[in-house]
């Protein structure tokens, strides 16, 4: 009869506290693994905390409106038959720690930099399972965009999230699409065996597909999240406006297009992107990458032929309300899981669907 404390997860590298916006369960609710428990605001975006275990919500320790440090216990989950005294002991301890503000800060995230294909590639690693997963973000994104996905995957796997050249903390020099695929292939070579499960969002989806074709021995499976490179339809205006935007006023409406619910875009998300865009070399890098992505107002990158030649299993997820790469256009891959209520940023708006897709790909391609 395990009595367990539910902690505020570390969703993303900059998260230190979470504010509880709503509890979606009450004391006594029976939950499964994956049941939505609470809405938590991370400054950057609002996320839904799902139950890591089946059981009964025995205590809710932190009230709605509380701002709680990462790692702090906010609820107690235990089987229905677990002793009341044991549940209360854990709840009392959690209340005491919340009141005193003493919470062990242990993110477990390790940061690293490797030289890959002659470029400095920055990455963050979480988890230590036998299967290795590499998360590759899209155009203008960075390793932090996997904030809701990396942590749940890391419970069972070793999960690296990297910054593509020109993005995040990686070197800003980038010449073309080949610079991106070369860097990811170089990253796989640098981290060594075993072969990895690649996950790519948007432009990152096209990148990991090309990498799987270039390094078949290093890749076990692909999970493509609203991938570029399948079909020609794209909101080219978004791509160009994102590259050109230099102020909050210009950037914010563009970011709204990424989500089914533009209200998801917080000031912090906009500010973090502006901080990135101000770094020397980023404006040129984004211009180069955006030009390599577009042929007029259509996609220039096409990985369908490469993908057809791959022997590894692929799972594809797409947001039903994607406005950047609208699903249902010609050339999109078959067998896609459509996620209702998600826009282009499926991994931020519906992380559970992306986690499930990755787990499925890992299962299908596992050793």
């Amino acid at each position: 009869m395990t009595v367990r404390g539910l902690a505020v997860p570390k969703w993303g590298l900059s998260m230190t506290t979470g504010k509880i916006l709503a509890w979606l369960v009450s004391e006594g609710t029976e939950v499964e693994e994956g049941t939505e428990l609470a809405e938590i605001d991370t400054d950057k975006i609002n996320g839904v905390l799902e139950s890591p275990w089946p059981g009964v919500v025995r205590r809710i320790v932190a009230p709605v409106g509380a701002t709680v440090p990462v790692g702090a216990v906010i609820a107690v989950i235990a089987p229905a038959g677990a002793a009341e005294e044991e549940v209360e002991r854990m709840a009392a301890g959690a209340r005491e720690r919340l009141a005193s503000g003493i919470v062990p800060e242990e993110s477990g995230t390790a940061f690293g930099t490797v030289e890959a294909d002659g470029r400095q590639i920055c990455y963050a690693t979480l988890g230590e399972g036998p299967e290795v997963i590499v998360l590759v973000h899209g155009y203008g994104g960075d390793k932090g965009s996997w904030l809701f996905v990396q942590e749940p995957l890391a419970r069972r796997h070793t999960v690296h999230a990297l910054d593509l050249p020109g993005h995040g903390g990686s070197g800003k020099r980038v010449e073309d699409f080949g610079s991106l695929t070369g860097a990811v292939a170089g990253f796989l070579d640098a981290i060594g065996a075993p072969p990895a499960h690649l996950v790519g969002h948007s432009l990152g989806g096209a990148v990991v597909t090309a990498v799987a074709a270039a390094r078949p021995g290093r890749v076990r499976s692909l999970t493509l999240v609203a991938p570029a490179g399948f079909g020609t339809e794209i909101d080219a205006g978004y791509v160009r406006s994102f590259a050109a935007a230099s102020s909050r006023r210009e950037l914010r409406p563009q970011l709204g297009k990424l989500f089914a619910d533009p209200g998801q875009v917080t000031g912090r998300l906009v500010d973090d992107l502006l901080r990135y865009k101000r770094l020397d070399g980023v404006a040129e890098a984004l211009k180069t990458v955006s030009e390599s992505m577009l042929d007029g107002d259509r996609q220039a990158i096409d990985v369908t032929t490469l993908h057809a030649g791959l022997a590894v299993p692929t799972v594809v997820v797409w947001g039903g309300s994607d406005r950047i790469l609208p699903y249902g256009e010609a050339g999109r891959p078959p067998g896609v899981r459509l996620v209702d209520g998600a826009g282009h940023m499926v991994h931020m708006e519906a992380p559970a669907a992306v986690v499930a897709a990755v787990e499925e790909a890992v299962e299908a391609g596992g050793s």
Partner: protein
Amino acid sequence: MARTISYREAINEALAQEMERDPRVIIMGEDNAGGAGSPGEDDAWGGVLGVTKGLYHRFPGRVLDTPISESAFIGAAIGAATRGMRPVAELMFIDFMGVCFDQIFNQAAKFRYMFGGRAITPVTVRTMYGAGLRAAAQHSQALYPIFTHIPGLKVVLPSSPYEAKGLMIQSIRDDDPVIFCEHKMLYDTVGEVPEESYAIPFGEANIVREGGDVTIVAFGRMVGTAEQAAGQLAGDGIECEVIDPRTTSPLDADTILESVESTGRLVVVDEATPRCNMATDVCALVAQEAFGALRAPVRMVTAPHTPVPFSDALEDLYIPDPQRVANAVKSVAGWKR
């Protein structure tokens, strides 16, 4: 990658990175090498509070130690800028600026205009301002409104280490004369700053905190004071939007007006004395451009119209604090006609 460094280190890093990038960048100022009673250049202080420490030996011949003659070396820096250099001159205390007003107001600020746009003057004048160091009336003033008044000058007030580095890099790259005002009480404050070079554009305000009830516009060190007040007020159910204009010239009027359009209430926090300061300027802007949106009178939280006192107790009272800001916010939030 970002890491945590101080405001002083952020300015030093900006100077070093720009000197690496551009050989035209030089530094001029007092006590860069040696200091009163020191053995000379081997004991390079890096200015009176050590902001340029380490640069004298790292960039031989490009960090010039000047005599205590502000009018001479500020004039020399302006002249060098017109001839293609990118000098960063440190004028220790903003209070001493008066002896070089002609060089700054009548020369540097006017060249581009009077030569029909065919001359540029890319000089940056670094200077310390503000009360709190027990340095008395002649070393504690917040005189940035005087420079804001002069067309042709750009005036920068970094409120944090992130702002300090990015605004210093922009100041050096900018083709116009810039008065870069460093608050002496901020040098040891710390914050996250990227290791890479980056420039923050002038005239673009930072929304430090979002909120829908009251707009607080605050300058320089007062940004932190306003944030503290906003934190307290959130506990009382009043959500403040805190705006840091970052530069007083150019001023990001659009961001201020958009915020007041949504909140209908304005408090301006300015450490300068209250006549013709930034608070009066912003209040006039809002009264003229957003009168219809106002649901309460505007409020100014400033220093009193007196010299900065030498008495510790009086100096502490002189400087606007979070409680005064919170009181002003409450008075406009609860205002009834």
